[in-house]
């Protein structure tokens, strides 16, 4: 298993942590303002890339 797979695992966990913080900052109704929505969009796209890379590394 490559170091890249390990890095991608941590990066994905950290991205999820940032998403978790948005949930905390907007509790209890989770209505996102424009900035939070943009942040969430960016984080989710990063997460998709990180999971895709992880998949590629682990299943190759």
């Amino acid at each position: 298993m490559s170091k890249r797979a390990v890095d991608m695992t941590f990066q994905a966990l950290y991205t999820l942590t940032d998403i978790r913080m948005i949930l905390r900052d907007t509790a209890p109704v989770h209505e996102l303002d424009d900035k939070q929505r943009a942040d969430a969009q960016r984080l989710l796209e990063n997460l998709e890339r990180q999971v895709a890379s992880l998949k590629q590394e682990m299943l190759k």
Partner: protein
Amino acid sequence: MRCGLGIEARQVDEVAINIDPIQAGGRLTADAMKAVIAYGDGYSVCDNCRKPNRLDYIAKPPIASFHKEVATWLNMDEARMVPGARRGFQAVAHTYVHKDDPVLLTSLSHYTEFLAVEEAGGVAREIPANEQKIITPDATAEKIEEIVRDSGKPPVIAFIDHVDYQYGNMHDIKAIAKVARQYDIPVLYNGAYTVGILPVDGKDFGVDFVVGSAHKSMASPAPSGVLATTSERAAEVFRTTAITGDVTKRKFGIKEPEMMGCTLMGVTLVGMMASFPHVKERVKHFDRELANHRIVTEALLSVEGTKILSEYPRKHTMTRVDTIGSFDKIAETHKKRGFYFSSALEEKGVTGLIPGATKVWKFNSYGTSEKQARYLANVFVEIASENGLTVS
């Protein structure tokens, strides 16, 4: 969802606004959560421990520089991280208090200060709070004089809370410390509700020790805290071991007995370190927290019969409220009795109130955004209106 056998995943702060008085300042930053992920293994900070083999000398992760930065931030000379403020009290009491020594506490002191004194064999002498639940310099002087008359000697140390846990009131630590110094009494500043919440300057306050609770007020995992002191006192409370085994002749280098060698050996310490830059920044903006808190207290006071028992206007975001004349009246006839209040709060996404409490309770709004503070304020008003209380 579970994170282990019988252990529900805790999602309290993701699904609700948490106003628990002791939890607000200890909520982790994103960086601390990331550090928890990376450093959760037991002795995780010991990968690069080199001689002289002591926690506060480790350079990678940068634990040594963190200790120096914390001391500087508190304007003290040396600091050690400890497993909670109580272990700071314990180290200081064990160093200075001997059997039957009088120790100056206050009528608002936290129980762990009493236990630290008890364990060391000392006698607890409390400065009484005035009617406003404030510890004054005059009352401090009177109590010291009383102790000198009773015991023939002044207290060996004073433990003074800057902001107390009962009312969240702010006491004039600088003036109180000045009185204590006139009797050569060293002062321990209990900053459990201040270190990491608002600016703290130990030397300006004129105190010998600054104790903080990282899991209460520095966005850190528990148990964690800080004990900082002056160079003079560091030689006493952070003295190094002198013991030798009689068979092996072993000695233990520069380990510090009051710290039991190394203190926070993993995730707690790295969690503190990861939050520290954010904590340093947030103390500069405590005015915003107070402004948000005001939104909530004003809403509570708009409910007829509600009183704020803490000093007012508020100087801290942890407040004691008396709702005997408002929300408690509903409890008398409500089918859920006193549990209706916490139940209604939970239904509206607010948690942290002791279930069943409708008479006197505390809450802490620290860390809420203005939007969340307005939501919280509105929830209290809504519950009052829904239950027929008068809202002005």
